[in-house]
């Protein structure tokens, strides 16, 4: 069993409270991504799980064992850092075996573990090389190999792909996903890149200012964001927000704004909707259709800008000052500065209360 349970965690750095009363339940074998902007506390949280930062209060449990005050080496974790932190003057083999050697593990056992990790990560030809002679992908594998050799139950990743160029990043991302499938180990991964989060995670925990805003599967976080911050953080281009009001007419609920109007009677409201409630409508670019053939349009706007992306294009609409991004087919030929009608898929929108920014 290699789950991680965190209860009421408090972390302070230089007297400033970074994390306060945080609860988190990481299931065994899952790939949990801590996602958030810089300064949100995700790295701090990860380092405290590793034992590199002391907590001021609360409890951390790994695999059923209380490790709140345990040394990093006694927590059964392995960690991959942004710079990979491979010992530069040691060969790959020495890098992998350094920890167990210090711990006094028998040489035969060390050799067995190194062999197993090297085979699993295809490092066998590289064992005698030094880190400076390895490529980025190879270094990542050695860093993971270090955790494997320690027979870690939980793998921690601190933004390992942030320093790499886009192509290499995509390649290593796939390698990581493959590795997770192969090992089935519990992995906690910190990033600010929402693409990484969406592609890698079995669950995403979106963080802001030391608080977890929402923790759920990528699909749920994407489609049913719990507040405007989460809604705006995921998805590129990000979700469109339009301010308006709710109107209740004859049992139906409508969202009304100066430039558009959507029937949201079928929306799964948590509480019954109030009339005239100031509301923000959130709709993703892929859920707006231009020049809809049959459905009634939600509104009209002028085409301000077009960004061809190759496989599709992003059309920016200007609706009386409100900017809307629309994902359109590559075949569609928009005419700039011409008015056009658009429709919104009401089943896919998110409604938020304007002042609290919470989902309705």
């Amino acid at each position, binding site marked *: 069993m290699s789950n991680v349970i965190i209860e009421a965690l408090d972390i302070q750095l230089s007297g400033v409270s970074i994390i306060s009363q945080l609860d988190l339940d990481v299931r065994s074998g899952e790939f949990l991504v801590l996602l958030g902007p810089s300064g949100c506390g995700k790295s701090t949280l990860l380092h405290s799980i590793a034992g590199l930062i*002391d907590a001021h209060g609360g*409890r951390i449990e790994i695999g059923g064992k*209380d490790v*709140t*005050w345990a040394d990093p080496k006694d927590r059964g974790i392995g960690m991959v850092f942004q710079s990979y932190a491979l010992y530069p003057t040691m060969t790959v083999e020495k890098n992998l075996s350094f920890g167990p050697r210090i711990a006094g593990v028998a040489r035969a056992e060390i050799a067995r573990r190194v062999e197993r990790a090297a085979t699993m990560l295809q490092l066998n030809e590289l064992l005698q090389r030094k880190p400076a002679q390895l490529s980025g992908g190879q270094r990542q594998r050695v860093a993971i190999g270090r955790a494997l050799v320690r027979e870690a139950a939980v793998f921690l990743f601190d933004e390992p792909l942030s320093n790499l160029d886009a192509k290499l990043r995509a390649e290593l991302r796939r390698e990581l996903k493959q590795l997770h499938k192969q090992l089935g180990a519990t992995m906690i991964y910190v990033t600010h890149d929402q693409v990484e989060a969406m592609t890698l995670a079995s669950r995403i925990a979106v963080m802001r200012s030391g608080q977890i805003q929402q923790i759920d599967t990528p699909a749920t976080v994407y489609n049913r964001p719990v507040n405007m911050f989460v809604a705006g953080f995921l998805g590129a281009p990000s979700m469109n927000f339009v301010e308006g009001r709710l109107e209740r007419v004859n049992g139906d609920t409508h969202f009304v704004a100066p430039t558009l109007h959507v029937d949201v009677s079928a929306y799964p409201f948590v509480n019954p909707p109030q009339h005239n409630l100031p509301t923000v409508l959130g709709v993703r670019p892929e859920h707006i259709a231009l020049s809809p053939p049959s459905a009634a349009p939600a509104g009209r706007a002028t085409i301000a800008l077009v960004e061809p992306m190759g496989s599709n294009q992003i059309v920016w609409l200007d609706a009386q000052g409100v900017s809307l991004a629309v994902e359109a087919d590559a075949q569609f030929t928009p005419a700039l500065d011409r008015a056009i009608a658009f429709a919104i898929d009401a089943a896919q929108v998110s409604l938020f209360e304007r002042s609290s920014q919470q989902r309705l």
Partner: protein
Amino acid sequence: MSAPPGRPSRITPARVGLYALLVSSAVFFLLPLYVMLATSLKPMEEIRLGQLFALPLHVTIEPWRQAWSTACTGLECRGIQVGFWNSVKIAVPSTVASIFFGALNGYALSFWRVRWAGALFGVLMFGAFVPYQVMMYPLVRALASVDLFGTLTGIVLIHTVFGMPVMTLLFRNYYAGVPSELFKAARIDGGGFWRIFFQLMLPMSLPIIAVAVIMQLTNIWNDFLLGLVFAGRENLPMTVQLNNVINTTTGERLYNVNMAATVLTSLLPLAVYLMSGRWFIRGITAGAVKG
């Protein structure tokens, strides 16, 4: 669900050992300073008691007054103030000149293509390591032949020449970090060699000039050998006079006066050091990292 074991103690034997070493080293380094100051403030009766580390019972600044105005530095007995002003007269022009040439050389080497410059720079760097004794005698004769031996101009010239390797290296490394686009833009704007130097590069070099001033002022002020040989009897720097006061006295040795003189000689470089903080370290490491 058991209660957490509590925070482990931060006070490990390793940590204690660390502070022990640091504190005892600090004592080792501070002791001579303390002794220097304490001795200089004691009257001779207390010194003869042989209690080196005791605080002065009767604090007196008489030794300082004596060191400054009446100590004997050879034939004269006008105190070490003579040396102080000599050192000022030597250090200031030497610092200015050696920094100027260092900056000029660094600038010319970094931005202009002169064919023979690279090779000469290499030899100059090597020259920084050559012991002074190898070059001393020919320099004495060369200066004597133009009547500059034993003059203020002579010693300033010597310090400029011996400061050139480190200063040139300092500025060249600094200018290597200046984007060449800046220089090209200045050329396009019509700047020539001297104009770009004085109106663009020098004003931009204030940080490294600060480091250079700290280094040169300290090194030239603390110099002994060059001042001894080249300065001439009227211009002997404070370090030479200090040595004369202490090591060439006949009769009873006035240890408090000696220590007062030592403190006075060290005041300027120590003041520069305390005020410059991190810049001083930058100076050491900049001079140490060769090419």
